[in-house]
């Protein structure tokens, strides 16, 4: 067993990977940093205070108005300058006792929000009573936050990058060094060489996906509502599909430059189109069928559905199908085209 060529080849894959500190960082460290950074930037904050300014009005009017921070100005000019500079989002001017003027940018949602709140306070203090009583019930549920949307997308993106890069670089490097030619001069079965990439990739997946998901669940409380096994199975299928694409991309290239250009060409559109950082629904309807056929879209959608909505295998069958097609089309073509020397 210890001296089986497939085992030795797989060991080589691990050794080469683990002895490359940069690779370790990009595969394991970077995704965590990215998730942490984005999670912090887009965390849900308590309702924000809106800064407004007043000229010639009594600040007591806004005393009970929620979410408003009131700043009195001596002159209209001073107030308008503060508004232009963005220090306040609304300036309330009382030219006379029975009149009010609101200065604000109506394209700024915060300005519109502040105007409504300020107006309510002004009108209520002047004696307006609400004919209908309203009660508020707040719902801040996990699973609908940005970080919940982001984590499955980042996971999919990492699986794509990890599979394509690790496959592509190691293969092209072995070809460039003529190491591949040297290996096929030995009795080594060629399938073992390719299999070793597959095995090491899947083993690495355990650490990669496990670490990332543990981080997301423990630090951000991202839910995994569907079957954990299905999430893992989806990751494995995704990795295989991207591994096949990586193999295809590196099947001919003789230099790292040629291969990395090709890989970026393939991955860049998916980073943008496949709903990693924002929903792919934002793109026009006409291109939606194309976006849906991309492997990263399929992987991201399947991961989101399983993790956030608790989807079962039946629900994500279309996405699994897309990934399977990519795998079954790319792998044989890659083998056919593969340049061994």
């Amino acid at each position: 067993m210890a001296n089986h060529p497939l085992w030795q080849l797989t060991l080589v894959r691990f050794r080469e990977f683990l002895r490359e500190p940069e690779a370790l960082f990009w595969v394991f460290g970077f995704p965590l940093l990215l998730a942490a950074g984005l999670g912090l930037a887009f965390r849900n904050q308590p309702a924000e205070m809106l800064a407004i300014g007043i000229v010639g009005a009594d600040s007591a009017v806004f005393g009970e108005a929620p979410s408003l921070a009131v700043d009195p100005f001596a002159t209209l000019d001073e107030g308008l300058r503060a508004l232009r500079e963005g220090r306040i989002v609304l300036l309330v001017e009382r030219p006379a006792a029975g009149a009010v003027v609101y200065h604000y940018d109506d394209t700024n949602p915060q300005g519109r929000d502040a105007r409504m709140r300020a107006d309510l306070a002004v009108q209520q203090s002047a004696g307006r009573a609400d004919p209908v009583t309203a009660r508020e019930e707040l719902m801040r549920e996990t699973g609908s936050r940005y970080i919940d949307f982001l984590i499955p997308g980042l996971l999919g993106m990492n699986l794509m990058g990890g599979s394509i890069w690790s496959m592509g670089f190691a293969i092209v490097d072995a070809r460039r060094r003529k190491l591949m030619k040297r290996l096929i001069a030995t009795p080594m079965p060629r399938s073992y060489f390719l299999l070793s990439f597959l095995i090491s990739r899947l083993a690495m997946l355990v650490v990669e996906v496990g670490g990332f998901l543990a981080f997301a669940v423990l630090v951000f409380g991202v839910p995994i509502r569907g079957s954990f096994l299905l999430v893992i199975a989806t990751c494995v299928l995704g990795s295989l599909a991207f591994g096949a694409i990586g193999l295809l991309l590196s099947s001919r290239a003789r230099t790292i430059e040629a291969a990395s250009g090709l890989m970026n060409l393939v991955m860049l559109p998916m980073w943008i189109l496949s709903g990693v950082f924002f929903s792919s629904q934002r793109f026009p309807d006409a291109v939606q069928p194309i976006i849906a056929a991309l492997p990263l879209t399929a992987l991201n959608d399947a991961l989101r559905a399983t993790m956030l909505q608790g989807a079962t295998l039946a629900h994500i069958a279309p996405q699994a199908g897309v990934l399977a097609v990519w795998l079954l089309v790319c792998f044989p073509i890659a083998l056919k085209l593969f340049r061994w020397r």
Partner: protein
Amino acid sequence: MSATVLRVRDLRKAYQDVVAVNGLDLEVQAGECFGLLGPNGAGKTTTIEICEGLTPRDSGELEVLGLRWERDATALKQRLGIQLQETQLSDKLTVEETVRLFRSFFRQGPTVERVIGLVQLEEKRRSRVGTLSGGQKQRLALACALVGEPDLLFLDEPTTGLDPQARRQLWDLIEEFKRAGRTIVLTTHYMDEAERLCERVAIMDHGKIIALGSPRELVASIGVEHVVEFSVDGGAQSLDAKELAAIEGVRDVRAENGVVRMQVTALHSAVPALLAELVRRGIRLTELRTHSATLEDVFVTLTGRHLRDG
């Protein structure tokens, strides 16, 4: 000990616009060290890689260890030891890990420790390949060729790019394999390497063998024992090649880059005669060298070019 382990008949191989091997015949006997000597581009590597099963041939017959690549590739690979030109083994693996990897491909052969001992890399066992010197890397490549206890060892330019000390160390190793009775086919463009290591040498040029025999036979075949090279003040133009050729014992006179090169059969009479001639004409000698004829001289005689010229 006279079984034929490699038989090549009318081998041909052309790339897009170059004919690399042009009708080559070759026979290598068990237990001998056979050298393919020639300048860069003579077709040595193409020939050896066809024999190794790495490059398909266009036509011709090829039998290795009595087997054929078309039929017996798997069995053949188990019995060959191969060292390619310019293979860069993975820098991040250690010597031992690299040898263990290659050992795992072969059904039988010595232990990893023994192979590392054979190429004298014991002290570097746990060092990464990336930290090895050129000579150590080449010895490691040799170790990877030896892991299957090969019946036939192919070495493609084993010492190219090495410093003189590393070359001599590698030669010592190869001589040890020869003593162990291994059959070796090696390519080289160093005539001293071929002279020192090979029982028989085939001189290749333009995809063909232009001379074949033991180094001694080949040198004897040009009928010249010595070569005299000299240069003079004012350049070689001031000399008349015909007059020099008229000196007794001088056979062939060529002037190249200001150096006159004469093939000489009788050194003891030709050199004094040359000196006397120069004195008589008042020409000052700036440099004078003589050496016994070598394979280099054989190549020059046959092709008019030097091995290094490529």
